[in-house]
């Protein structure tokens, strides 16, 4: 089961994950944890170093079982002047599109309220 949780910064994604029964120890910026928290931060670092690879990132996440991926929505602003910042937004958006395709559930948390965008039956 792969769950993708999206939402703008500070919209309550962390609280929502905890409400699903996950403990703080389950949540980290590590692909080996139960909840991969702030995927966008991981993508940011990989974009800075130039090592980000969309296919590789998606495959790695798709290979995990019973995983929750939490990612900020970062594309709803003016296109940044800085190249790395632009690539970061692009990489994060594309990555979310690809993960959403293979996810069993996609949830968006908006002002603390979760909405189901996708639910595989």
């Amino acid at each position: 089961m792969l769950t993708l949780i999206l939402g703008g910064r500070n919209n309550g994604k962390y609280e929502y994950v905890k409400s699903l029964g996950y403990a703080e120890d389950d949540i980290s910026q590590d692909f080996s944890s139960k909840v991969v928290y702030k995927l966008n931060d991981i993508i940011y670092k990989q974009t800075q170093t130039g090592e980000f690879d969309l296919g590789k990132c998606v495959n790695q996440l798709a290979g995990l079982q019973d995983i929750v991926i939490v990612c900020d929505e970062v594309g709803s602003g003016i296109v940044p002047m800085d190249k790395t910042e632009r690539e970061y937004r692009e990489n994060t958006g594309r990555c979310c599109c690809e993960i959403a395709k293979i996810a069993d559930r996609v949830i968006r948390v908006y002002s603390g309220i979760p909405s189901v965008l996708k639910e595989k039956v």
Partner: protein
Amino acid sequence: MMVLVIGGSASGKSEFCENLAVRIGKKKLYVATMRPFGSEAEKRIKRHRELRRGKGFFSVDCYKNLIEIQSRKAYDTVMLECMSNLVANEMFEEHGDVSSIVHQVKILQKEFEHFFIVSNDVFSDGAPYSKETMEYIQNLGAINREIAALADVLIEVVAGIPLIHKGREFIEKYI
């Protein structure tokens, strides 16, 4: 039917809108508004071309004065990609006129059976910008709102998934 599709950068809005236009339209005109300046723009345009391949669109460039496509009467369906570039071109290029965009959209809405407009959500980064950029944000926001009011359908795309804000009854069977 007029459909406005809005999403952030890399939200999957274009691909979603293309696929919707393919399901609904017959003879389809794709109107591209991005000027091919620089390698990134070229890369972006190339990516969009790849996405459209085999979907049966005839593509034209229109950087300003959208009303020029009114003469393309052989088409029942138009997809405009995208409003955010058109607004920038009309605001920042010579002989531009951002104030006439909505009026032109109104005319084209009557001219074509199906009119799909892609626009950008640039409104949520909360960052301060120069006066010019703030004006751009205000203009795009106002144009999005006016077109949304005129449109039959308003869809927000998040990670390739549509959220229907208006006109569910018209569009649900195509999604």
